[in-house]
């Protein structure tokens, strides 16, 4: 291991080390901590200019209730769920299929198709913005959640195919040979061999794509307009423009937006990290 591990019996040194790292983390997250503190500050305190001190009075309930009752954040939050969940499910299904075929049924051109999935996934969003927007307008999907769902499924399928193809390719080949020797059809192989084995990969992929899609801002502002459809990211930025001086309300809304991915991350951390590194490292 590098750096050299601090020995188990050096209790004091270990304690000091953890203390030091805790300090670094506190500095690292200071901007976020400040926003969290502001989100529970009362209006009076903000008026009095207490922006960074410890809050004297906690207005947690008031501020968050204000976000739910006086702003459209709850609507945006619901929109985000309506967009993100079907998109994730769609990506998981499509990429299991493409990954399975590209890893287990090599044919002429299959490497080229794989390269297209991988390369396309690195393209900056702006490169496809105009035609995608135009396509959604012509399909009558512009400014509906379906525009975002269709786009996100299409785009994330690139990354997800890379991910699933590598995962399925790493499964033991004997399983597939045995299944084929017994005369299993491709569908049966998928159903009885692939699906039960790819669950960990699907979990990692689900948490990753959930985060990517939930956090998307660009497509939210390109493909939607009305409050009835807008996801939280676009909603938050609008809110910031409308509530310029009510920092506590905007802070509360910010925390509200950040909550689902952060909670998911802490619940499924191992999957998230392994997914991220595998996606980037295994290329």
């Amino acid at each position, binding site marked *: 291991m590098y750096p050299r591990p601090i020995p188990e019996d050096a209790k004091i040194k270990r304690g000091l*080390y953890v203390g030091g790292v805790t300090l670094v*983390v506190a500095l690292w997250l200071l901007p976020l901590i400040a926003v969290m503190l502001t989100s529970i500050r009362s209006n009076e305190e903000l008026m009095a200019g207490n922006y960074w001190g410890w809050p004297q009075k906690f207005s947690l309930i008031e501020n968050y209730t204000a976000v739910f009752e006086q702003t459209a954040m709850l609507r945006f939050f619901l929109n985000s769920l309506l967009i993100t969940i079907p998109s994730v499910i769609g990506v998981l299904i499509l990429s299991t299929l493409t990954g399975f075929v590209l890893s287990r049924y090599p044919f002429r051109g299959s490497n080229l198709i794989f390269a297209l999935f*991988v390369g396309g996934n690195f393209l900056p969003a702006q*490169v496809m913005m105009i035609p995608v927007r135009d396509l959604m307008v012509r399909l009558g999907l512009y400014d509906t959640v379906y525009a975002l769902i269709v786009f996100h499924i299409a785009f994330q*399928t690139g990354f997800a195919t890379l991910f699933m193809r590598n995962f399925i390719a790493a499964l033991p080949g004997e399983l597939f040979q045995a299944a084929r020797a017994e005369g299993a059809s491709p569908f049966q192989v998928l159903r009885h061999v692939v699906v039960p084995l790819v669950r960990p990969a699907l979990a990692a992929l689900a948490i990753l794509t959930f985060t990517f899609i939930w*956090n*998307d801002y660009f497509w939210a502002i390109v493909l939607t307009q009305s409050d009835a459809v807008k996801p939280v990211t676009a909603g*938050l*930025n609008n809110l910031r423009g409308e509530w310029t001086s009510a920092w506590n309300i905007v802070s509360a809304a910010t925390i509200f937006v950040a909550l689902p991915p952060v909670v998911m991350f802490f619940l499924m951390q191992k999957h998230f990290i392994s997914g991220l590194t595998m996606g980037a490292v295994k290329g």
Partner: protein
Amino acid sequence: MPRFWRRHRHWLTPALFLLPGLILFSLVILAASVETVWISLHEWDGIGAKTWVGLANYAELAEDPQFYVSLKNNVIWLLIFMLAPPIGLALALIVNQQIRGMRILKSLFFVPLVLATVTVGVVFGWVYDPTFGLLQLIFGLFGATAPALLSDENFATFAVAAAALWPQIAFCMVLFLAGLNNLDEDLIGAGRVDGARGWRMLRHVVLPQLSQVGFIAIAVTVIGALRSFDMVAVMTTGGPYGSSTVLAYQMYEESIFSYRFGYGAAIATVLFVIMSAFIAWYLHGLIKAERSNA
């Protein structure tokens, strides 16, 4: 039909499995990207008919001072983002200890990575706030006044890119931690026997083993810098006076706000060409690494 199916299902089923994803991806992502190049050869307001103008949009772009501002800012982003891999490595080295409580600290370091860029933009908008921001608080300790970074033409891009660095560092940290977990223990042991310690160990034994992860961290960071859009849109909307635009943002502005879709497409195409060069370099490096591993 059933007989046809039975005879051909060994390839028909896989083809049917592949097609939905492939068609959707080709149509929405790949064809759209190519279509952008086609649109860039036209004058188009986004609704009416397209008028063929050949390379006129590119000729205009070559004369457009705003284009050079964006290009210059993309370079600034790139340079600032290059801080992410070394800082990420440093943080990874700091937390790579097995002590109780370290795991939760590690996860806390990763938090910026899961925040939406909008969230990061809002958070740093306040850090930079000239009256009540964290920056002013720090400057105030020394009796100084913090500059209003986001409304200063000279500082805006640096301030926005520095804010975007936050999640990028966390990303690099994740990658380097994975790399540190795969170090060859024998080599480290041999290094220790030879008396290599600290900096020399890092330089001569550890870093060479991290070269692949380091390459990926750099490549991902370059691509991230070129893609930058959200933070600019949220923190400065390209201002003040268009001084903090990047190619991605200028493209969005020309299309959505000025209805100059042809011109926007030309900017997107330039971005596309720059990105393709980097993507090709990245994929080439990965394939080379995979071959040498096999």
